[in-house]
């Protein structure tokens, strides 16, 4: 089984997300980088599929040269191959990102054979466009369902059963391979890299495929933080002695009747 997983390098902010003075980007001066939790789970799902059904997994990203870090993180967990679509400057819009990724996948498949399963995150952590995976699947002519929280290969490896949450419960889909899925956090519990995995990931050769896609119709103008009501926190007390004050509050709020 050949499995591809697409991830995006994003900053990992803590208490707040600071914006650069020109309003054009998140100020990453004091931040580490990561990928969306949905994508971490997609990487774990890719590794599990290969563990269960043989074959190999590949990770792909479109981003700056530094996104090498996210590719090697995936490699440290058991992904065998890594592909970087290097870009300079600001993020590409979703249409442009999707067409570049679609073209790269087509080129990889022409050389090495089709992927049976391609995994995306449900949405990227930062821009959250909810579309790159769907555009890529459509371009490849493959079925896609987003929001997937469970997968299982069925029918002698010809199809895949996928589950997702809906308001009224779980929806179940059965999709023929090759298939594309948008994965949500909760589908699995991602493993942590082992020391051996980390060392092995340093040796993975990252394939560079410079993208050429043209810009789409969505143009970011500026970013800012939503205004928050500054609230003076009422300190009800310190330690267990505060319990009566807390319960007074519960009564006042009508929570304790």
């Amino acid at each position, binding site marked *: 089984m050949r499995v591809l997983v697409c991830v995006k390098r994003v900053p990992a902010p803590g208490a707040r997300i600071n914006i650069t003075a020109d309003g054009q980007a998140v100020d990453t001066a004091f931040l580490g980088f990561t990928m969306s939790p949905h994508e971490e789970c997609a990487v774990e799902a890719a590794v599990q599929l290969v563990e269960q059904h043989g074959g190999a997994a590949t990770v792909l990203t479109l981003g700056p040269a530094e996104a090498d870090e996210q590719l090697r993180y995936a490699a440290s967990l058991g992904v065998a191959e890594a592909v970087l679509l290097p870009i300079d400057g600001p993020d590409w819009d979703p249409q442009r990102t999707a067409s570049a990724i679609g073209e790269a996948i087509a080129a990889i498949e022409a050389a090495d054979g089709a992927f049976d399963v391609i995994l995306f995150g449900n949405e990227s952590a930062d821009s959250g466009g909810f579309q790159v995976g769907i555009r890529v699947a459509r371009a490849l002519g493959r079925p896609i369902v987003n929001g997937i929280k469970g997968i299982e290969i069925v029918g002698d490896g010809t199809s895949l059963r996928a589950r997702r949450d809906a308001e009224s419960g779980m929806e179940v889909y059965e999709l023929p391979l090759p298939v594309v899925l948008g994965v949500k956090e909760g589908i699995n519990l991602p493993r942590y890299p082992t020391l051996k995995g980390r060392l092995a990931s340093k040796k993975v050769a990252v394939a560079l495929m410079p993208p050429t896609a043209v810009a789409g119709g*969505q143009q970011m103008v500026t970013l800012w933080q939503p205004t928050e009501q500054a609230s003076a926190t009422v*300190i009800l007390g310190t330690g267990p002695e505060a319990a009566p004050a807390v319960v007074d509050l519960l009564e006042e709020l009508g929570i304790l009747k």
Partner: protein
Amino acid sequence: MNVVVVVEHDRGALSSASLEALAAARPLGAVLAVTIGAGADLLIGQLAAHGASTVHQVHHDLLADYGPEAWGEAVAQLVTLLAPDAVIATGTDRGNEVIAHVAAILDQPMVANCTAIEPAADGGPWKLIRVRWGGSLLERCELTAATPLLTVAHHAFEGSPSPVEATVVEFVPELDASLARSMVIDRVERAAGVTLGTAPVVVGGGRGVGSPEAFAPLEDLAALLGGVVGCSRAVTNNGWRNHTDQVGQTGTRIAPDLYFACGISGAIQHWVGAMASKKILAINTDPDANMVTKADYAVIGDLHKVVPAIAAEIRRRRTSTSVLVT
């Protein structure tokens, strides 16, 4: 201006987000609502009450249940036929998914989760505000498109009645039988009961709780108040609790009357899932924790001592009132 609104429903039950999408569309022009599947035919009354002057009912065997590819194809064909000035859908899992399919089919841009929509003036771009980082950040963006395809962020527009007379038009798309490949084939219905998203009280625990067993006092407090337990991603990542309990950007958005945030630092990705709570009470050893400084109320101290003390005080008052009553 004609604006198509793709109505979200689950086998004929209208979602509240659909009313918000109708409210977002109304100021722009005539609202053409689109319902997919015969199961939604009965929605005409509700849609007209919210300002839809035309209801396009899309009928096809392959639309009997939800299928993202088939829904997307059907909407794309109708949009091609009607050539509206914009298409608006709900910024929900389904709404975003269907519009992304439409965007891919028509090779048009799509802007997800808008909070403000300003149509193009004099052939310029549409001016939009949308949310990023699950709502922690706002973005102003410009959209240049033959047919603007937008979804609206939850709670950005208020659904309110604005009754008109609706004309009903049937549309039968041409759908290839192969689209059956991505239709819902089965369902597991959720058991009735309080869920994290709807609970009146949520008792949330973070890394400070320390272990799966140490959630027992939080469970106890939640049960006393008719609420449920929630948690941070540090907790789910450690395998202490199931992801279904996670509050935040990649978990559940909660909106209880009161959220107890115990041993949670208040990272922005957690906060964004909790900020719709009416009141927040933080319990933390660190008076400078973000959760403490942003909360309405706080107790500074060890949650392992504070939480059981609150439960004990509730029990004490309950017994003394029942003694008074008898």
